[in-house]
């Protein structure tokens, strides 16, 4: 069900969409966006790849990617970060902010040009939620696509 126009456009556009999705996930604590939004954009890039290819190629391409394991990894990471706060505070407390760890720089007050190294547990939660959402949405569309009977492909 693909045509030449879709294949050419996908070759140019899909990497851009994937990079843009990752940008939205990573900068969730500075600009509008975050885990779910970035994950949904990333998943639409992967769905573009599904739509633009012939059914057999899609099956062989996506059988190797561990979508179920990625989903579980994202969810377990979320719970693990929440349990980090149990050490001396409550569940889901931001225990990494203003300490020295990755993503743990000091947060400036007031208007600032946006430093990526701040944010604490928020950035980790964004990354894990983004992973889970992209795995989940892609597997939904993949299963719907593979149920369709074999149409007469045009390429």
């Amino acid at each position: 069900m693909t045509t030449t126009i879709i294949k050419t456009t996908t070759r140019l556009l899909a990497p851009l969409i994937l990079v843009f999705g990752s940008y939205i996930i990573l900068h969730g604590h500075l600009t509008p966006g975050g885990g779910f939004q970035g994950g949904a954009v990333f998943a639409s890039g992967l769905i573009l790849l599904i739509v633009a290819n012939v059914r057999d190629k899609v099956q062989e391409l996506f059988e190797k990617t561990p979508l179920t394991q990625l989903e579980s990894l994202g969810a377990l990471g979320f719970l693990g970060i929440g349990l980090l706060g149990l050490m001396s505070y409550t569940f889901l407390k931001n225990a990494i902010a203003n300490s020295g760890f990755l993503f743990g720089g000091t947060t400036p007050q007031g208007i600032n040009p946006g430093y990526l190294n701040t944010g604490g547990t928020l950035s980790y939660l964004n990354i894990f939620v983004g992973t889970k959402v992209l795995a989940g949405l892609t597997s939904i569309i993949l299963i719907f696509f593979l149920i369709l009977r074999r149409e007469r492909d045009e390429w």
Partner: protein
Amino acid sequence: MNGSLFVNFPFIVVALLLALGFYTIGFKRNLIKVVIGVEILEGAVNMFIVALGYVKGGYAPIYTQAPQEAVGKMVLPTPQALTLTSIVIGVAVTALMLAFAVNIYRHYGTLDVTRVRRLRG
């Protein structure tokens, strides 16, 4: 009359969408149209929550490269968080309903709501 209609316009649209959603769920015969009716209803409730968060003269609650006069006048980010959660839940519900619709078509051969009725009594 002029001022109050302009300010309350989002809420009038919410009421219209609610009526449209309930009409589609109740009176359409194709199962896919009924699923779309549930989605319209969900969109109406999301819009209601976002419209509640409007403050005249407020700025978006983002400190990164914000304009100088925005410091004391930012709105609360709570309604946006509520709407985002609701949109995510709506995606999951829609996906599950469409999966059920595909399976119903495979077993019954039709998507007409009045004929998908083996469980009765």
